[in-house]
């Protein structure tokens, strides 16, 4: 049956509210065009339209579309209405108020032969933005890609290594998750600083400061490792990069690792210079990252193995490229050897990514938790040691003297009191603002350290450190700012 414009418009809105993507698909002509304020360009063709709409639907729940006025004229229908929904993947506010996506709109549907050939909406995108920007102060450093992230629509930062870290952009969580898992994303991780060890004792000092053996380390190797304090507590979990002879970079998370390592070098008799170089990395993560980078990197990337690095020119700029990252999937990090041409590099990457649907985002915590590639930082690690963090394989107790080895030998001998587990959480969770306490029926304790919505599993998940006696399959109770939630202990990773 051929639909009138008004019926088609109403059918689209009703189907959208019911998440009935199949019904929406049937309404569009193959060569239809979609124009929404959310996109800078028209979306052309039914497959592309449906891809965008399915991503949108995955990120929304409790959708309601109320049409207040509908007018039909010839082959077009005009409507004024109100759209209301809740975001999926953005926890409720601290008082339990859900993060909503409510706005008024005008929609115009144009039909040909009973199918929608053009759908256009008019609305202000401001109510769609998850959060306002934080206030900014000059006491905290900026990444050299600052202008690029502003241009890309950054809306919230965290402070990381005394540097603003762009985390939230004007996208929904489901859009960013789709871009990371199906296309490619660009992250400004200029805040991920390098502790550079340069000199004849660079590897020897790195071996002393970190927990894995470096006896077989070769130029071009990278290693995920740990730096611990003398009590065996994790300071941070850097990626150790050996890009050149007598040069080691500890590419670290939020910790004053350069000061720590420099102090050790000064008083430890190491023939080495320790400093924080002007090296601000970028991450290109996602299944299309290799394809995107091929034309930009002057050295073939295809043979670069997992946790390997190589010097290369990227868009004509001297850099080190490594096959590392925080996505748990295919991805690369680029470490330019200077920030002098930072925006030139950024712009070249954005341009190269355009044909591949690149999206500028922050690191995707949803995927990181699903893949269990989270990190640990000294000032918020709850005194965790590597065995409690599930990092047994990152400690080589037999490698010789290193910082923390005595304490870690004792812990290994006696057994860790806690362990890191996954939690499958029932129901909704608020935003994790600080670690939530956990108890079980026997009063054993723990705390939630990460909590997100899993788009892969369609439910909330968490990573917790718990009493070592708690086993997989047991139920625990999480206490949080809006009440409590039940959860089942499970193995990691989730996917």
């Amino acid at each position, binding site marked *: 049956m051929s639909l009138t414009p008004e019926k088609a418009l109403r059918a689209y809105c009703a189907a959208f509210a019911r998440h009935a993507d199949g019904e929406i698909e049937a309404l569009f002509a193959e060569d239809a065009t979609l124009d929404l304020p959310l996109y800078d360009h028209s979306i052309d063709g039914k497959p592309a339209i449906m891809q965008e709409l399915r991503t949108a639907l995955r990120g929304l729940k409790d959708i309601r579309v109320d049409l207040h006025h509908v*007018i039909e004229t010839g082959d077009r229908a005009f409507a004024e209405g109100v759209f209301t929904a809740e975001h999926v993947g953005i926890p409720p506010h601290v008082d339990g108020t859900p993060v909503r996506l409510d706005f*008024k*709109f005008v929609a115009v549907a144009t039909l040909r032969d009973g199918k929608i050939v053009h759908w256009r909406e*008019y609305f202000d*995108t*401001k109510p769609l*933005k998850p959060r306002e920007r934080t206030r900014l102060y000059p006491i905290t450093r900026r990444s050299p890609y600052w202008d690029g992230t502003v241009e890309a629509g950054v809306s919230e930062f965290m402070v990381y290594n005394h540097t603003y870290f762009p985390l939230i952009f004007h996208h929904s969580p489901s859009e960013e998750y789709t871009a990371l898992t199906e296309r490619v994303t660009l992250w400004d991780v200029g805040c991920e600083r390098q502790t550079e060890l340069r000199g004849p004792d660079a590897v020897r000092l790195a071996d002393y400061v970190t927990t894995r053996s470096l006896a077989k380390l070769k130029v071009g190797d990278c290693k995920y490792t740990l730096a611990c304090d003398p009590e065996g507590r994790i300071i941070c979990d850097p990626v150790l990069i050996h890009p050149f002879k007598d040069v080691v970079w500890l590419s670290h998370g939020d910790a004053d690792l350069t000061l720590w390592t420099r102090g050790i070098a000064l008083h430890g008799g190491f023939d080495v210079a320790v400093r924080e170089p002007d090296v601000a990395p970028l991450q290109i993560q996602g299944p299309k990252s290799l394809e995107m980078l091929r034309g930009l990197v002057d050295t073939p990337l295809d043979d670069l193995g997992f946790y390997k690095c190589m010097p290369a020119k990227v868009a004509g700029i001297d850099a080190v490229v490594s096959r590392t990252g925080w996505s748990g999937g295919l991805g690369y990090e680029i470490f330019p050897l200077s920030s002098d041409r930072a925006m030139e590099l950024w712009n070249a990457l954005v341009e190269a990514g355009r044909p591949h649907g690149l999206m500028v985002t922050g690191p995707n915590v949803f995927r990181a938790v699903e893949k269990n590639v989270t990190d640990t930082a000294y000032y918020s690690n709850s005194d965790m040691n590597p065995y409690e963090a599930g990092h047994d394989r990152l400690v080589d107790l037999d490698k010789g003297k290193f910082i923390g080895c005595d304490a870690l030998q004792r812990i290994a001998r006696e057994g860790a009191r806690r362990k890191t587990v996954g939690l499958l959480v029932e129901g909704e969770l608020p935003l994790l603002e600080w670690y939530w306490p956990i108890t079980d029926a026997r009063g054993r304790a723990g705390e939630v350290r990460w909590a997100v919505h899993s788009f892969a599993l369609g439910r909330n998940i968490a990573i917790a450190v718990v009493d070592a006696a708690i086993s997989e399959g047991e139920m625990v109770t999480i206490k949080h700012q809006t009440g409590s939630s039940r959860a089942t202990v499970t193995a990691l990773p989730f996917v």
Partner: protein
Amino acid sequence: MMTLKSQLDAYCRAFNARSLDAARALFADHALFELPLLGQRLFGGDEIAQGLARIFELTETVRLEIAAATESDRILIAEGALTAKLHRDSAAATMPAAITLQARDGKITRLATYLDARPYRLWTDGPIFAGAQA
């Protein structure tokens, strides 16, 4: 008796001429006016005039163009574009816009403009017409 379309045309003429008096005269005493840039709904002649004054103050040029309009006996819905150059900006920005308009006894009772106001906001994303929020 003015049609809804003629009232929209009159509003656009007044708006594009930056004529506060002409614009205000088109609205009923308790009219509702919505424009994303203002950050809220404006109610009544005084608030509408204040909001329009703030727009004219902050823009070097501003122009509303209507491309097509259709109406029932209750409401008009129009498509077009808003082009504005703020004093702080080096160039004007044009955004697609839709307008809905309702009227009674020859006066506009509700005029709502739908557009993505992103290019006109400060990068810090606050409403730029802070005066209208007072």
